[in-house]
């Protein structure tokens, strides 16, 4: 029976990044993945990259991730993160004006390129947008989007090159903490590891229940609706329309995607409708064309549904949950862009090294203590 320093369960962006950073520390890592890397929600992410966060630590992590996306080839074996730096604009109603100004001032101190746009600058910045209900906008020059599968594969394959063992099509059925190790049972195979990191997204909760740990994580189904610009002049950057409760993301030069910013219905990760309903696409399109009437000339181009593993405060759940067992989950639909750099902090935690003080706030025990974090703006907690 083989033995590892760390068994990482899940090869989404978070498991992949943890494996990448753990192997960088020279640890012997096994990655167990039920399908293929990025085969779960990661691969269905719209993969927006931004550092416009209300949570200061996450803003810094996102900024560090941006650096990694930018230099991804050098950090891996020449893998491509698909990072496209389009810039992003975030629209806010009057009620969010003060919070927004305060957040931007804080972000500027840490070097995030965020800039407040007052209404007199809207016309130049957002031509053709209907902005009557918008009091303030934030422009983040470095925002954009990446390729979630390419990024995940790049991190996993680099971990493998550094000696990690990747087991795909391997569903972990059982976790068991024994005296000096953790036994991970995948299908018929038992693997022993000094420590285990559960980064299994929507499957995290049932897995941790096997060792008597109950985290209040829920699973929500969220859609990514696709469109082509058609004859309409493209919107070349990301839009976070908080009053309209949707985001827009360009996808290459000819297409774009829309998704909701609000909470959604819960779903069973093993049995959910993976296709988008026509109505879901049109609800988003209706909100978007109210804001950007010229995109009434766009065409529907399908879409899909993904899953968010949502924590009660829509912030990540990172920490130790039992002797030798750690968790990195609950990123509530805004985790992808955090992944590459967040894994460095998670790896330090799992390795028993000193960790950034900002990580402690995500301790899984906060829910039992009633010590919830704040996140985002109003219902758009996904802003983080």
């Amino acid at each position, binding site marked *: 029976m083989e033995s590892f320093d760390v068994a990482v369960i899940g090869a989404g962006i978070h498991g992949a990044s943890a494996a990448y950073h753990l192997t960088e520390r020279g640890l012997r890592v096994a990655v167990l993945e039920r399908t293929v890397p990025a085969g779960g929600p990661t691969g269905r992410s719209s993969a927006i990259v931004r550092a416009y966060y209300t949570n200061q630590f996450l803003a810094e992590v996102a900024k560090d991730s941006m650096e990694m996306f930018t230099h991804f080839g050098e950090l891996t074996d020449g893998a491509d993160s698909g990072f496209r730096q389009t810039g992003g604009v975030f629209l806010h109603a009057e009620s969010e004006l003060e919070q927004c100004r305060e957040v931007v001032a804080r972000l500027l101190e840490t070097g995030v390129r965020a800039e407040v746009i007052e209404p007199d600058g809207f016309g130049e910045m957002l031509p053709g947008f209907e902005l009557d209900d918008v009091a303030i906008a934030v422009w983040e020059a470095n925002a954009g989007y990446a390729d979630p599968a390419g990024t995940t594969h790049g991190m996993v394959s680099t971990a493998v090159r550094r000696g990690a063992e990747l087991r795909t099509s391997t569903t972990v059925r059982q976790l068991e903490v024994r005296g000096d190790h953790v036994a991970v049972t995948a299908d018929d195979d038992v693997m022993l590891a000094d420590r285990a990191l559960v980064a299994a997204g929507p499957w995290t909760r049932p897995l941790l229940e096997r060792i008597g740990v109950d985290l209040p994580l829920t699973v929500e189904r969220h859609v990514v609706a696709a*469109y082509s610009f*058609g004859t309409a002049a493209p919107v070349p950057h990301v839009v976070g329309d908080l009053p309209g409760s949707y985001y827009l993301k360009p996808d290459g030069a000819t297409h774009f995607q829309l998704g909701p910013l609000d909470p959604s219905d819960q779903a069973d990760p093993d049995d959910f*409708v*993976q*296709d*988008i*309903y*026509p*109505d879901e696409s*049109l609800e988003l*399109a*209706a909100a978007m*064309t109210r804001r950007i009437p010229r*995109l*009434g*000339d*766009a*065409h*529907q181009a399908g879409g899909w549904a993904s899953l968010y593993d949502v924590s009660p405060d829509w912030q990540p759940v990172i920490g130790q949950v039992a002797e030798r067992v750690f968790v990195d989950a609950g990123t509530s639909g805004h985790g992808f862009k955090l992944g590459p750099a967040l894994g460095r902090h998670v790896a330090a935690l799992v390795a028993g090294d000193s960790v950034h003080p900002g990580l402690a706030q995500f301790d899984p025990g906060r829910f039992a203590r009633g010590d919830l974090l704040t996140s985002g703006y109003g219902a758009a907690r996904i802003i983080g």
Partner: protein
Amino acid sequence: MSADEEVVVRPTLAVLVKDVPLADDATDANGPRGLDPISEVPLEWALRQRAAGRAAAVVAIAMGPPAAAETLRRAVAFGVDDTLLVSDPGLPGSDVRRTARVLAAAVDQVAATVAVCGYESRDGSSGVVPSAIAAVLGWPVLSRAAEATWTDDDVIEVERDVGSGPRRERVAAPVVLSFVEGRIDPRYPVLRDVLRSRRASVPEIALDRLAARGLETTRHERVVRTERIEPPRKEPAYAGPDDGPDAILEILAEQGIVA
């Protein structure tokens, strides 16, 4: 208008569209449904005929549950003038014969003299409903049309894709045409039109109203069960560029395609 001038009454074109499961797994009862992609081809053809002045109006007809109104709204977004939904508790699970009778009655209801549809549906895939409708109506059918040209002397020249090269036929209304994909590219509606079509009202008609026009309503079939059948797996055989024609002949001989 002089006495010599002929008054030409342009016909109404009926497009028979189908509300189908859109998910890969067509047996998933909870999955999204919508306009059968094959229905987009006859819709496009019909709208082109209207634009060219050949048809006075295009009416989209569907048979389905009340929710199938959404599929007809999609047809409105494409640009049809009117819609008709045949919906009745007695209809779910109808077989080819009953479906054809109902749709033929609906074509009659809207007084269309040209009825167009896809060659087979995404879910049922029988491929015989168009012919069965023609049989009920007593009209000719030209199936698997790739393209059809409506000439000035009111003849429709149809280029059929019947698997052994194109076949050209000429026909005059009344007629049923079924279309295949490939030659006619549907123009997809812009979001503005799709969003506007969500408010379109879709007339619904029950069987008893159609029955008044001579439709037999007695039901001879019922759904016993629905089961999922895995498609048969075929192992591909490969012949590389250096293998030469003999290798291809050998593969064909193994399959019993050539002696």
